[in-house]
Each structure stands twice: as structure tokens, then as C-alpha cells.
């Protein structure tokens, strides 16, 4: 069974993005474990002179390192990802690289109709930067618009079409993780061959 880390890009107590990840956690429990982590205990990013990072960032990095993949649910503030999320990602790429080669699925929920489309596009760019180097699942996007009305009293997504779409994405993610593992293995093997070659 795959193990994922779920990151809601928010420090808000009530967040429909956290709600979305909680739904994913519960709904796909038979197929995967999703551990939800919080980013609210990380300070606003600044470059430390000794390249040190907060203990909370180290702990988070270790969890991500050990996981098969990461699922993001991002809000959208001012057409972009919230500062609290970009700040967390800055810490998680400051002389550490837990995201390098890590499979990632991006989702998001917003009160309005657009479901964080702009923030997701930006998050994709951020995660593709060399310092983060994540493996974002291609052509996968999941947007929950009107998120205040999207969940029932049990916290389940009401819209069947959305749930089916998510089912597909979660299956794809599982396959994507496997393919990525193979890719990493074969790249490592090739790199080893190449190293041997140069030594001759």
C-alpha cells in the first residue's frame, strides 16, 4: 500500500483544502495511507547565514523523504499560492531536497467557481524549479469550486463526477509512483554504468 503525505497549503483553522485532504485520506484508506501534515509552525522563510532550517522543516522533510508521494491541496490568494505554502516550500528546498524526484499530485479548493486554477498552475512551476525538482503527475489537475458547498455533513464530496475524477487520479498516482520508481532505478543504473565507463 502506498504512503502519501498530504499538505494543505494553509494555516487557517477552517480550510476546505484540509477538508479535501481529509476526504481523500478517508475515502482511499483501503488503497493508500495519507498522512496529513501542517505547515503553520514554520516561520516565514528567510535565508539563514549558516544554512540552518527550523526543526519543524527537518521533521517535515523526513516524512516527505520516507513517503511514496505528496498530495497538495492549495488555496488561492491573489491569483497565487498562499505565502504560507511558498514559504514552507522555500524551507523544504533550502539546502535540503526532500522533493527531488518525489511524485506529486496537485489539488485545490476555493470558495469561488475557479477552484484555484491559477494557484495550481503556479504551484506546478514552483515544484518544477531545480531546487525542488518534484515529479508532478502530468496532465493531472483536480479543482473543487464553491468548496463551502462541496462537502456533506460527513465531510464527503457531494459531486459524484468529482469523486469519480478523483478515483481516476488516485489510481493514476499509484501507477505514476511505480513508473517513477522504475525510472529512478534505471537512471541510477545508467549513471552507475556511465561512471564505470569514465573510470576506464
Amino acid at each position, binding site marked *: 500500500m502506498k504512503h502519501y503525505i498530504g499538505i494543505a497549503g494553509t494555516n487557517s483553522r477552517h480550510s476546505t483544502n484540509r477538508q479535501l485532504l481529509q476526504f481523500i485520506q478517508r475515502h482511499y484508506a483501503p488503497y493508500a495511507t495519507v498522512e496529513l501534515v501542517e505547515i503553520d509552525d514554520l516561520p*516565514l522563510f528567510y*535565508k539563514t547565514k549558516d544554512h540552518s532550517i527550523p526543526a519543524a522543516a527537518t521533521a517535515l522533510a523526513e516524512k516527505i523523504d520516507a513517503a511514496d508521494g505528496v498530495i497538495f491541496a492549495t488555496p488561492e490568494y491573489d491569483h497565487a499560492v498562499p*505565502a*504560507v505554502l511558498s514559504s514552507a516550500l522555500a524551507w523544504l528546498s533550502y539546502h535540503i531536497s526532500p522533493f527531488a524526484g518525489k511524485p506529486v499530485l496537485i489539488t485545490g479548493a476555493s470558495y469561488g467557481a475557479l477552484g484555484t486554477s491559477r494557484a495550481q498552475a503556479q504551484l506546478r512551476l514552483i515544484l518544477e*524549479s531545480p531546487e525542488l525538482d518534484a515529479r508532478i503527475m502530468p496532465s493531472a489537475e483536480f479543482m473543487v469550486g464553491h468548496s463551502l458547498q462541496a462537502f456533506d455533513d460527513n465531510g464527503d464530496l457531494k459531486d459524484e463526477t468529482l469523486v469519480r475524477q478523483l478515483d481516476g487520479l488516485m489510481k493514476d498516482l499509484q501507477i505514476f509512483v511505480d513508473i517513477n520508481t522504475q525510472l529512478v532505478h534505471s537512471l541510477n543504473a545508467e549513471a552507475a554504468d556511465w561512471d564505470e565507463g569514465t573510470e576506464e
Partner: protein
Amino acid sequence: MKLVAIAGSIADDSYNRKLVTFIASKYADLADIEILSINDVPMFNQDDDQTQSAPIQYLTHKIEAADGVILATPEHNHTVAPALKNVIEWLSFNVHPFTNKPTLIVGASYFTQGSSRAQLALRQILEAPGVGALVMPSDEFLLADVRTAFDDHGNLSDERTVKFLGSVMAKFVRWVSVLASMQEKTHTEPWRQEDLDAGRPVDTTIDVPAGAEDWVEQGAAKTNAASGQDYVKLDRGLLTVDQLNWFLNTFPMEATFMDDNNQFIYYNHFLDHDDMLAPCYPSQVGNAAAMCHPQRAQDHVKQVIWMLRSGQTDRFAMPVPGNKVNAKWIMHYYQAMHDADGNYRGVNEWVLDTWPIVADYLKRTGQTLVQAPGAQADATTGASAHSKPEAPTTPDADTGASEAKAATPLVPPVASTPDASTGASETKAATPLVPPVAPSTPDADTGASES
């Protein structure tokens, strides 16, 4: 000119802070540039509103008071530094100092990109509703390889870079001035001087508070007004006040008198409030114009009154929202009134459903209505022919009073109403009269005598 500059970093050493420091000293002759610190701004959290905290209040006031803002952004992971995004989140939450603020983006980075991706992201963020900055278009100042860009005195060493930055700064300063003068103009458009609070009494103004419920009774006592059997000499005739009322109350339209002090002083009271096309209570007579119109409509009211007062037109006409083609066509007409010397003395507003008149005419003349294909006929009369309702906040700054007639019905159209009824400009649903193919009953030629 007063500008503020923010380096998007809270690090101890920041090349972007170095860049804005250089800009502030090098271009001091162009503008007074103050560098604002964002070091103490807390992490944005919508559950914990710290808008009132000192660091955020400081930034809000400084930005509000400035003519323009310079933002220098580092690039972290292909995007804006979190510290800068964090500031913008606070300044687009419960305060909005960036709204309409001319803003210049610059940036520095360690390598070749010079913060190019961060600048693009920042532009997108600044243009989001809620932030609403006016980001200067087209010019980009990207400082690459920043670690070797400054000399020991903190000056940019490359002359061509300095020259280019100088041209960007000169352009920004010019741009700030142009925007400032535009905004100035917006606020000095002549129609804005219309006082809907009726605060400029005229020679006919009665000294009774405009909001008084018994304004008519108080005013009548004060002026010893004629009533009942008293005769009034008119142009041209002689009627008692009773006769005058019988007369005015039987015109098939609701008529209102708003005087040249924008005070509503009369309507022909023959219907109860609920039966009126433009509902009104007897106690409202005496109100200032502002009290009779919702806040959102007040700029439109001012524009129309100004149009009439300044003589751009003598009549403005518009259909109301909610009209139905070929069933109900309620029109509001605003007619300027003048004294014998041609001085503006107020607005005669009359409201009626014009459809029964058209329907009766069609019946009597044996004609029918046909939609003219692609016709742009004028559904309204008067000066509003080609007008387009404008949002009250966007009067045309360039054209001033002379184009005020291109503005606005008194009440903004309701968004959900069909095109045909939304306002003066919505003319395409107008249906010109055409004779039927077979001339059936040519009553029109022969009159009512059924020859």
C-alpha cells in the same frame, strides 16, 4: 514626487534591498524614495487578523500616502519571495493600499534569470482583484549575477545597466504623473459638483428641514401658501388650487418636480405608493435628491442633472429595467425647466407606460409590429440615443462634461434583465412600425368616422 520601495526579503543581507537602496540614492533627483521594511510583518493567517498591528499599519499608511511603489523581488523556486507575497496578502485582506497605485517591479537574482519568473508571478499577483495595483507595463529591470553587480560603495558597476535603470525610472516617474493627473481629472469632472443633499438653497427654497415628514405642512404654514379655493394666475389662465390639483392629478403620468437645489418638492399624488410606477410616499416630498435615490445610483443622478443644468440637453429619457417588449414599456423622462430668462430651475420628471399608447395606435391604424432585422433603432428619445450605461466609478476622464450625455440612466440597469430593457443604450429590440402587407383597415386616413 513621493515613492516608496520595498525589497521582498527579510534576510539580513539582501541584494534586492541593496538594489532599492541604490535606486533611492541614485535617482533622488527624480523622486523622494523611501525604503520600507517588511521585517516584522507576521505570517498571514486569515483566522488571526493582524491588520491593526504596527508593521501592517505602517506599510498601509506609507503606501497610501505615496504616489507610487517600487517592488524589488528575489526569486525563490521560480516565484516571488514568500516574505513579499506575505505582505501583499495582508495588504489585500482588510486593507487595500495598492488599489490603483502605480507600481514598478524590479528584481535581482544570483544567476542569469535576474528574477524573471518571480517578476511575472508578481505582476499577476498585483493585478488580482483585491490588490488592484497599476503595474507599469512593458519595462522590465532584471538584474542577473547580482553577487558581482555592485561595487564596494553599493553602486551598480555596469554603466549600461545604470543607464537603462535610469530610463526605466524616468519612465516610471512620468507614468506616475500621468496617472495622478488622470485621477485628479476624474474627481474634478463638472457633474460631480451636483449636490444631491440640496445644500445650496435657491430663491424658492423654503426654510424647513429637507427630511421633515411634514415638510409640506410646515412649508405651507411658513409661506402662507395658497390652497383650496384660492386663485392662482398661470401662463396662461386662472385656476383655483383645487382646480389645479384636479388637472394635474388626471394627467396619465406620474410627474415629479425637483428644483434647482436638487430638492424633490412636488409630485401629482393620485396613486398610492404601491400602485405607482415610480413609487413614492407623500412624506417624501421635501427630501433632498440623495434621500430618494440609492447610493449606487447617485453618480448617475448627478450626471443626468448636470446634463440638464448645463444645457447639454433639455431632455433625457430611459426605459426602466424589467420592461417587456410589446407588453409594458415604462419610460422615465427628465425634462429641464427654465425661467423666463433661460435659467435652469429644475427637473420635470414624468413616468408612464408608453405601451398602451402604442398598442392603441396600432389598433386604430390597423398596423402591426415587426422586428427590423439587425436594426439599431432608437428605443429612447432625446439625448440618450447612443448612450451606454456606465458604472458610476468609471466616468470618462478624458471627455469631461461635453460627453456626459454618453453617460448613464438614473438607475443602473439590473444585470439579469433582458437586453431590451436594461437602459438607454439597449436599442436593438426596438420594433419600428411598418404597415402590414395587405392594407387592411386604412382607418388612419379617414379618421374615426368609419367611412
